[in-house]
């Protein structure tokens, strides 16, 4: 079945089997490999991408369901060679160790900050509660998101 979609503002199309999962289309057909597959059981959130602006677990969506949708992955965060404030935040605050969860954390917090530009720590912890990190203990991830919130609000 022919699927046409936009990803990070670029139009793509591919002929896929209906059973192909969206994450496999993104990684293996479109070769955008920053998005990870972790648990493959809808728990970990490493595969989180934005579909029409909302974070979804792309291991639990069929590629054919993305027909006509606008998707965004981590590849779309960097603009004109400049990292997004969230990416800078994760670097500056050591928001990652192995980095496996990071793509999902970035996309979930990207959508979250658009809706909640000045969140409390509790708000951030709520927002990322569907994204599991086995390394950091979350403390630095929260700091990274706070870092980005300040930056995006025009602060230092």
């Amino acid at each position: 079945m022919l699927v046409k979609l936009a990803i990070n503002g670029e139009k793509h199309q591919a002929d896929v089997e209906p059973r192909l999962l969206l994450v496999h289309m993104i990684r293996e057909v479109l070769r955008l490999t920053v998005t990870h597959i972790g648990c493959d059981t809808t728990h970990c959130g490493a595969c989180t991408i934005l579909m029409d602006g909302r974070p979804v677990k792309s291991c639990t969506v069929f590629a054919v369901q993305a027909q006509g949708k606008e998707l965004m992955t981590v590849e779309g965060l960097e603009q004109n060679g400049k990292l997004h404030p969230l990416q800078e935040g994760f670097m500056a605050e050591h928001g990652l160790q192995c980095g496996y969860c990071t793509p999902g954390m970035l996309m979930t917090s990207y959508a979250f900050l658009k809706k909640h530009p000045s969140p409390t720590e509790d708000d951030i912890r709520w927002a990322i509660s569907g994204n599991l990190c086995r390394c950091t203990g979350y403390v630095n991830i929260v700091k990274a998101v706070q870092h980005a919130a300040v930056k995006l609000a025009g602060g230092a």
Partner: protein
Amino acid sequence: MIPAAFDYHAPTTIGEATALLTRLGDDAKVLSGGQSLIPLMKLRLASPAHVVDINGIPGLAYIREGEGFLRIGALTRESELEESELIRTRYPLLHDTSKVIADPVVRNLATVGGNLAHADPANDHPATMLASGAEVVAVGPKGERRIPIASFFTGPFATSLRPDEILTEIRIPLPAARSRGAYLKLERKVGDFATAAVAAQLTLDAGGRCEEVGIGLTNVGLTPIKAAKAEAALKGKNPDEATIKRAAELAAEASEPSADLRGSVEYKKDLVRVLTARALRKAVERAQGVTTRA
């Protein structure tokens, strides 16, 4: 994990969808949020030959009050329920529930209709809808019928929906002046199903007595449970501490949990008792709060 191959259908009207379901019969599955169906297909616990994706049918996602009911379109996402001002202010039982289903990312896709149609006794909306006295609207090739929620769940993962029917709407009677509820769930972590959870909805009359009572239990039986004896123990009474305690004991007696990693039978029954008392106290507090503000 790769699901078995299937044919994908994306109807754009309800008529087209029910015609497909009529033709394909038991070989077809409706796809809403996919947050229960796709995991099952990946594990090959479900291998439908046809998937009928209803997400392309416009007009099935809404939250509004009208004609005596709160009406929730079947394709309404859990996150939409959670973010709705109407739900937060007038239906705290529903708001409480939407916040504890799965996790925030899953809730962006998971639908209210799917949560009921899936009929997993561990799902949270069934108990909430039992406590709310809801009814669901099902549309089939011969038209529409309304099913009271108390007769909707017929077994584990089984409902009174026919294979050619689509659940299109959930209706909850508009709350009376002093009617409020609460949902309390104990979960081991975000994204886990309930060890046990209790939904309570109360309407107080002018004298502060319980005029209407609904109590639903999650994940302590083969189906969601309506704790009818506990409801009867409160009806017409003042919801004082002794009455609440009695109702909580009756709710625990109505539960039929099985032992698993989340706990033993005794533990879960006692949990139902404690959560019922707490949910009732919270519902009373909220219902009383409505008067003072009015």
